[in-house]
């Protein structure tokens, strides 16, 4: 029985420039500490080895401190053994990175920078396919078919890249054969690149990022605990939680009569999780102006409790009826202005920008009037 943790796409050093200043440091830090959480899971699962299937670092030139701290963290978890594979973000082109890593390499860290079998232990052979460049333009795992390993040894593939016509970076030219594990007689193919966890087949898995970095996958940060009973035996693959921040998208499909604020309140995660949550509320459907203003207000009210909260309303239309306008004023100049804005927002002959401005103006007018004594 050989057990190991399969992870990838740590993207250490990622800076999250689009996030608010105060959150950036925490997100960045979480990418570091995920090493500790992986180690914890390894020990818990009685695994002695952690395979990192590429993109350990976000760029080819992480700051020396960043690299050294990561290596130090790994060294700190000896005798756990770490194996790092160059991915597309930290490909072999990153001379400086790998030279520096080699120079300060702890004993329990192995760099899989050559497409040659590595004997992890007697009878356990690792076949790495390091990324040679940012876009190799070919299937780097090709060599595994011909790689000779001792009779009866476990063959574990380690690769980074897209397996179907999708990829984390959106360009899917360098496709790894989906049946590489079968073709090359691999007992397990540990894949990286896709930040969501995914089973390709019984022997091929994407571990997903252990610490998520975007809303795209809408799942917690996880790694895989893999147990191989012996050559040819089906691998036992168990997802393990490693994430620190939760990146979630909250879809709100609203109907005209809904009380959006109430719907939101119902679906928000519980208070204790909010500090570690990055939430994207995607509102769609239609809302009456008051409800719309209410939604804005409700989002504004809870935002400080979350690590990050954004409300996306591109798909949300505002329905206005006469009673809604009554909330502004029943008659007089104010009502007159509201009527005109409404008409403008619905006037198809006007440019989209103008209609949008009129719609926004009307919603704003609602919010003004709501705050006034009637």
């Amino acid at each position, binding site marked *: 029985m050989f057990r190991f943790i399969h992870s990838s796409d740590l993207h250490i050093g990622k800076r999250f420039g689009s996030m608010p200043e105060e959150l950036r440091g925490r997100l960045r830090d979480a990418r570091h500490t995920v090493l500790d959480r992986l180690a914890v899971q390894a020990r818990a699962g009685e695994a002695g080895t952690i395979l990192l299937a590429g993109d350990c670092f*976000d760029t080819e*030139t992480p700051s020396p401190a*960043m690299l050294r701290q990561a290596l130090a963290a790994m060294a700190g978890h000896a005798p756990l053994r770490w194996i790092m594979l160059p991915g597309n973000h930290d490909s072999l082109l990153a001379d*400086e990175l790998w030279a520096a890593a080699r120079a300060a390499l702890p004993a329990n860290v192995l760099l899989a920078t050559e497409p040659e079998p590595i004997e992890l232990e007697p009878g356990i052979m690792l076949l790495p396919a390091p990324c040679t460049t940012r876009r190799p333009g070919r299937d780097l795992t090709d060599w595994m078919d011909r790689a000779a390993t001792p009779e009866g040894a476990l063959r574990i593939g380690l690769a980074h890249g897209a397996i179907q016509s999708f990829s984390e970076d959106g360009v899917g030219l360098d496709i790894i054969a989906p049946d590489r594990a079968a073709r090359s007689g691999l007992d397990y193919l540990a894949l990286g690149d896709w930040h969501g966890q995914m089973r390709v087949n019984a022997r091929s898995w994407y571990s997903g990022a252990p610490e998520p970095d975007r809303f795209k996958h809408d799942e917690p940060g996880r790694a895989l605990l893999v147990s191989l009973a012996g050559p040819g035996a089906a691998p036992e693959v168990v997802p393990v939680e490693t994430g620190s921040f939760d990146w979630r998208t909250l879809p709100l499909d609203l109907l005209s009569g809904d009380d959006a604020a109430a719907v939101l309140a119902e679906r928000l995660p519980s208070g204790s999780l909010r500090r570690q949550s990055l939430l994207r509320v995607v509102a769609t459907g239609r809302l009456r102006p008051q409800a719309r203003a209410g939604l804005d207000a409700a989002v504004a009210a809870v935002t400080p409790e979350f690590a990050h909260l954004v409300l996306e309303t591109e798909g949300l239309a505002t329905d206005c009826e006469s009673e809604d306008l009554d909330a502004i*004023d029943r008659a*007089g100049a104010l009502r*007159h*202005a509201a009527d005109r804005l409404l008409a403008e927002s619905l006037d198809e002959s006007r440019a989209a920008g103008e209609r949008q401005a009129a719609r926004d103006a009307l919603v*704003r007018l609602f919010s*003004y009037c709501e705050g006034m004594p009637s």
Partner: protein
Amino acid sequence: MKLTALRLHNVRRFAGRGVAVEGIGDGVNVLCAVNEFGKSTCFDALHALFFQPHSGTPGAVQGLRPYSGGNPLVEADILTGQGAFRLTKQFYGGRRAMVRELGSGRLVAQADEAERFIANLVQGGTTGPAGLLWVRQGITGIERRAKSDEEGEKRARESVLTSVQGEVESLTGGRRMAQAVADCEEELSRLVTATGRPKAGGPYAQAIEERDRLVETERRLSAEVRELREALDKRRSLRARLAELENPEQQATRLREVTQAEAALTAARAHGEALKTAEVEVALARNRLDAARQALDSHCRNWARFAVLRDLDTDGRRKRDEAQARQRAASEAGQVAATAVDTAEREEREARDLLSRLEKSLRARDAAEHLAGLLQSHAKAEAGRAEVEAIQAELKAIALPANAVKQLEAIETELVGLRAVVAARVPLLRVDYRAGVTGAVGLDGVALGDGEERSLTRSAGLEIEGVGRLTLTLPHGRDGHDELAQAEARCRALLATLGVGSLVEARQRESAIRDLTGRLGLAQQRLALLAPDGLAALRETIARLEAQSAGSVEVKGDPEAVRGALAMAEARVTASRNAQREAQSARDAAGALVVSTERALASVASELSGLAAMLGAEEGRQALDMQLAAALAEADAVFSAAQAQVETLRAGATDLAGAEAKFRRMRSVVDAAAAEIATMREEAAGLNALIGARSNDAIEEAWQEASDKLAAAQKRLAGLEREVALLTRLRDALEAARAEARDHYFAPVMGELRPLLGLLFEDATVTFDEETLLPRTVSRNGLEEPVGVLSGGMREQLAVLTRLAFARLLAKDGQPTPVILDDALVYSDDDRIERMFDALHRQASNQQIIVFSCRQRAFAQLGGNILRLVPWVPEG
């Protein structure tokens, strides 16, 4: 409401007394009086009555009190829909307010109730709109007014509009609208300036700045990342190249190749040297061969020449001998010729000598003959000459100058004449002696003959014997004596000069001279015949002849024969000489021939002897021939061998240039590799530094961060732009709606005001201020001006017309209200005032208007009910 009477007591200038304005009627009422008459006092009192609570003493009330103090009392009679009332207010001491029904005198209200009653009248209250409209100087803004006054009046106007148009608020959106506009403005003002530009320091401007800054940062970082990646790529290729260059196998190969090339070069060079030596030897051998061949050739040539020379020598000797023989012959011929010449010459000399002697003797004979003749001639010539000389000497002795005779003759003639004159004039003395006395009288010592006449001169002494001496003195002149004396003197002088005693003698001499001259001529002719060339030449000839003739020997012979012999001798001489010359030239030719033959023989001989010496002895000649031939053969063999050697070397020669080029190329390959390695290491070091610096800066992370930040900033900016658009749109919508509502609100009063304005101003429109409910701007001829900048006259006219418009609105609503004007038209000209009054009268049909004015004259003609101040004593 209408006012019917106003009374006041103890108010301001009316201290301790009262005045009343009674009988205020409908239409226009005018209280026209000079200044300081109390019009304003009336106005202020009336105002206080309606607007000042009786219990207070604000400024307006204090202003009513006289300097002397006291308690101002104001009373007015009014007529309302409810009936006629009398309003009374007293301030300060005994302060009170009360309302009585005028007809019955019933007390309707007092104190606060009375105040409320009055307030209802003027401010509308619940019953209706305000009951009074005021215009006074101050309303034009020229005079400061209490805020409460303004407020009260505004309230009055507002109530008017509300009564006809509804609540302002409900129309313009009121506070909600104002609040919304304010909120919108506030939000907008945080983002943009009044002109819509991003506000400096505001979030919008900051977002733009942030975006711009990030664009710049991103651009810079992206360039740096690109630079880094390029550096990495470059370093990678450098390293690959370096690895290639520094590959030991390749380096060894390169070195081996260099060594090989060097060895090949050395071999090629050695071969080249050998070839060069062999070539030198060949050249040497060829030289030797040539020398041997030349030696043999010259030897053969020498022999041939020797043979020729020998022949030439023999021939030359023969020729020389012949020439010598000929020379000898010529010499002999020359001797003969010389002898012939000598003989001929001697004969010639002899002949010549003979001839000469002969001729000499002939000449001597001739000379002697000639000499005799000449001697004769000479003697004659000598005689002739002596004769000539004698004649000449004679002539010389008697010679007279030319003309001498003629002169003498002339003087003689003159003398005769003069004597005649003297004779004619001279006193003559003549003594005729008595017989017998002789000589008794002497004149000047000379005795006078008898009868002798004597001329007396100037002084004559007459000695008369026995008598004594008689002296006669004659006067001088006119007697011709002087002239005669002079002429005689001249004659004497001339005679003396001529040496003759007289003219006769002179004439004798002259003829003697003529004779002599004739003789001389003859003698001279004779002499010339005898000695034509003169005596000297004759003597010379004689001398010569004498010489010739002297010593001559008589020679016999025929000169002609002698002369012929001489000619023959001369011919012989010439012929012999010619023969001698011919012989000489023959001799010369023979000599020259001898010399030339000798010379030719000498040169041949010398050459011959030289050759003979060279050729050596006759017996060794064969051996020498063979020796030379052998040397030639040997040299030829040596040359052929050397030639063959060179051929061999040439055939086996390697390409030296090629070997050198290859060696150089190999060397340069090695050097270039070394240089390239050095350069690349250097370049790599530079790249290392750059890459190290960039990597240490985590440049890519920074770039991604900047890109993300830029995206976020752009998103934020887009949000802000949308916000600005939204707020701008909202503000515009609100303002537009409010302006519309305002226009609608003021429509009724505008409706009333427009015809009134038309009376004074053509084509003028007015906008109202929402706050004050008074005109804010006036537009004329398309130009909109705030009221504040209008002229005073226009402002007060506008103020009056506005009040009239409000009053008409009230009147239409069934609530007629008095309009009170206190000196409201101070700035207006008479024409305008007249037109204003037209407006007022037009109003006044069912409108009470009370005008206080000091402009008596202007208002005198305007009609209306004239009011007067009359003394009044309050009741009780």
